[in-house]
């Protein structure tokens, strides 16, 4: 029962974590009551993972708790000796990790690892097997007895996460810290995992600290929410109150930059820049949000505003009068559908198959291979934004690589402006690379760390060998302006850029040849919501200024709806549904599309989510 009496399980009192004098977490106070779920919401670098690290004593080098206390059942975890703390961890306090696959030991079977955990909890050897089977049944894993003999890599990410959840609950802990437990998983898996965590937590009356970047998800999972920005609590209160009546301009911006799955498509309101890195915290003496705040005044930058009560248990760190009215909440203008003239498609993919041959064994017998793409047909008109949605393993990334010629199709044809470029050599390659360019998923991997930005964005000119240095510099500057990057970044290396800047560089590079169609593979999935909104708006602007088309591959239906007028749904290499975005998402025909749509938490808090049906299927 939220708000029920009883002393808190975990309580922070003025907790402060510093790095070389700069306060990374500033004066943090909160309480988690027995059986309650507290959500810590913030973008990467906001300090939300620091709490878990303070509990586990795994703060990165240089970071230290410099003030306040973190009480667990009345005992201060900060000052506790190593041995009693070790006794608490894994027993009274358990963790659910972000990446279940890396958290499980790859060379031990599930049974062995779970057994080790129970051994630590002093469960007698003879009882362990039954305990494991019943724990795995609780997280709705089918045939748990068979799972015991399997290794983590033989399980899907969702199954591994269920094993981790079962292990976390095995000791009946008082507190579970779940740090982004669903971020690495597919959307529909996310719904199952949330359902299971929530159900287990209710049954066992366990307190849960739920750390996430996703405000919409947190409002569904948590009883209370605490929004962090640059190490400060900016807003805290009951989940429903915070998500339906957000008062702090940052919380409002977080909500506004998350595209909805229904209603009018409006241009997303975005904040300028992005959250400063830890090194910049020390130079923000007052309200740390002031530099990005749409309603700041002179006083904001000089004094830290106090947390002020604005409703029952609802507190906001802001001194502005905005707290009661809607100032700073300017809805974007509605997006108008761009009419497509009947010109021939830029890209036409006709019945393309991709077969990966199986490995030969030592006798030369070939194992059966897989068909990653089974007869996909796609066409994109000039200036058209087409989305491809599907979960990991659905073949959507392979399709992108086939389109770009990074893989050769087993059969089928790929046409650019009516010219068959399937051959991918000589003239065909030249035509293809002149018209199509790709923006890669992970800017970390897509940008050569040894090239400065200038030589990254103009890499195409290097291949041609004709361009001089001055010409290159001028082109680089133009591309930087077009993608909203400051020109003084030109001689920086990728490791010196933020995530959003890297993705802009990634886009700038693809624009260098003035392509007519961009192929973008999950380009916003690794970004924070506020930066994601900036990148999405940039893509819309590029359609305005350049008339560029887009083949947008994503697992995020809301983002696809925001950008694309047409959508294809892929599953196991096949296109299972296709049509105008509003029609497909509004009235999905294929059961798979329906399950994808159902997995997205709806805006309206009165609609129950996750849907019960979602949790039953595996």
């Amino acid at each position, binding site marked *: 029962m939220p708000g029920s009496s009883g002393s808190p399980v975990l309580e922070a009192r003025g907790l402060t974590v510093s790095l070389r004098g700069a306060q*990374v977490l500033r004066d943090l106070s909160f309480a988690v009551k027995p059986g309650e779920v507290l959500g810590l919401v913030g973008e990467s670098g906001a300090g939300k993972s620091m709490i878990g690290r303070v509990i586990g004593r795994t703060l990165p080098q240089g970071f230290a708790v410099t003030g306040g206390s973190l009480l667990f059942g009345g005992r201060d975890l900060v000052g506790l000796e190593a041995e009693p703390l070790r006794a608490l961890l894994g027993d009274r306090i358990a963790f659910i990790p972000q990446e279940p696959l890396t958290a499980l030991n790859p060379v031990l079977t599930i049974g062995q690892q779970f057994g080790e955990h129970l051994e630590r909890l002093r469960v007698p050897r003879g009882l362990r097997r039954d305990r494991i089977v019943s724990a795995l049944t609780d997280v709705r894993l089918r045939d748990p007895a068979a799972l015991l003999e399997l290794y983590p890599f033989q399980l899907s990410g969702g199954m591994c996460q269920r094993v981790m959840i079962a292990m976390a609950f095995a000791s009946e802990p008082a507190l579970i810290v779940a740090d982004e437990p669903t971020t690495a998983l597919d959307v529909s898996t996310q719904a199952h995992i949330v359902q299971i965590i929530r159900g287990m937590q209710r049954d066992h009356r366990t307190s849960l600290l739920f750390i996430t970047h996703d405000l919409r998800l947190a409002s569904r999972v948590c009883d209370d929410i605490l929004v962090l920005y640059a190490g400060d609590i900016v807003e805290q209160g009951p989940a429903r109150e915070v998500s339906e009546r957000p008062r702090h301009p940052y919380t409002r911006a977080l909500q506004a930059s998350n595209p909805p799955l229904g209603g009018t498509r409006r241009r997303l309101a975005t904040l300028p820049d992005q959250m400063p890195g830890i090194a910049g915290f020390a130079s923000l003496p007052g309200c740390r949000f002031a530099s990005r705040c749409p309603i700041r005044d002179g006083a904001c930058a000089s004094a830290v505003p106090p947390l002020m009560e604005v409703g029952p248990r609802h507190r906001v760190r802001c001194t502005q009068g905005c707290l009661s009215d809607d100032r700073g909440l300017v809805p974007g203008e509605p997006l108008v559908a761009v009419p497509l003239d009947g010109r021939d498609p830029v890209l036409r993919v006709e019945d393309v198959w991709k077969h990966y041959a199986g490995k030969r064994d030592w006798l030369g017998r070939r194992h059966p291979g897989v068909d990653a793409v089974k007869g996909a047909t796609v066409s994109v008109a000039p200036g058209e934004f087409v989305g491809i949605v599907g979960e990991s393993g659905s073949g959507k990334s392979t399709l992108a690589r086939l389109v770009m010629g990074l893989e050769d199709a087993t059969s089928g044809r790929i046409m650019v402006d009516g010219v068959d470029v399937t051959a991918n050599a000589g003239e065909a390659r030249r035509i293809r690379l002149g018209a199509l360019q790709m923006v890669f998923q992970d800017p970390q991997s897509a940008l050569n*760390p040894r090239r400065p930005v200038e030589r990254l964005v103009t890499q195409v000119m290097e291949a041609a060998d004709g361009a001089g240095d001055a010409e290159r510099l001028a082109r680089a500057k133009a591309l930087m302006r077009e993608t909203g990057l400051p020109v003084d970044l030109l*001689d920086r290396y990728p490791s010196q850029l933020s995530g959003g800047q890297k993705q802009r560089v990634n886009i700038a590079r693809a624009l260098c040849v003035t392509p007519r169609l961009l192929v973008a593979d999950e380009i916003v999935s690794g970004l924070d919501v506020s930066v994601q909104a900036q990148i999405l708006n940039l893509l819309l602007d590029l359609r305005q200024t350049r008339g560029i088309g887009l083949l947008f591959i994503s697992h995020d239906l809301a983002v696809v709806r925001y950008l694309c007028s047409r959508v294809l749904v892929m599953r196991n290499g096949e296109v299972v549904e296709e049509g105008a975005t509003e029609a497909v998402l509004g009235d999905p025909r294929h059961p798979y599309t329906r399950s994808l749509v159902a997995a997205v938490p709806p805006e309206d808090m009165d609609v129950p989510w996750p849907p019960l049906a979602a949790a039953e299927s595996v």
Partner: protein
Amino acid sequence: MSPRARATLQRCLRDPRVIGGGLLALLVAGLALFAPWLAPHDPQEQDLLSTLLPPMWAAGGEAAYPLGTDTLGRCILSRLLHGARIALYVGVVAATGAMLLGTVLALVAGYFGGWIDWAIGRLVDVWMAFPPVILALILLVGMGAGVNKVILAIVLIDWTRFCRVIRSEVLVVRRRDYVAAARLAGFTHVQTIVKEVLPAVTPLVITLFSLEMGIAVIVEAIMSFVGLSVEPDVAAWGVMIADARTTMNQAPWGVIAPVLAIFATVLAFNLLGDGLRRALDARLVTSRGEA
């Protein structure tokens, strides 16, 4: 000099390993280069009246022979200095050869994959299955003794060391999206390998190169110890150890001096290699305070 190159240089010069190893390597190289002028005696000059002299600071030592003399009354310091020339010549040339052969095959195998990778991989496997010392002896017996034959033998044996390690690094780099992006920027395969893949493995190549120089110095010492390298009348560290071996109990400095020379040289190359690898790797350059 571009700001980038300057920053890289500064990073190199800030690393104590680079400074220490570099200075030591420079010292050895300088001594080797100027040996004819630095050495107090001709390395072959015999003084049969003063054999097995101890170093000058020990009782009975003479200032004319700072590190003493061997059984034939030859100046140990002079032979050490001239021996450094052989050691460095073999070290640099053999390591360069092994590096070129190994790296090119590794790039081809790792980048293109498929049957080429298979063929090169099996070749390396078979090659590495021979015990290296036996292989060296077979090669040298077949080709005849001589310092250039030693170099050839080292190249033919140790390219696999480069090939195997660098290939696995190339495989990692090959999967990075920026290699695919370079292809989409219109780069040819050769351009992609040279401009995107090779720079990524260069720190590793440099490290291996330094280590290989150290190994080559040791192999040359072994080969000249068993008389398969230089002519017996040429001063080389291995020859010095072989000559002094019989009188090791009466005159230990005859063995100690060349052993220390080998030790210092190999240490210099290893320190330098490790320091450079860290300083050259742009991935380790991050903006301050980002966590």
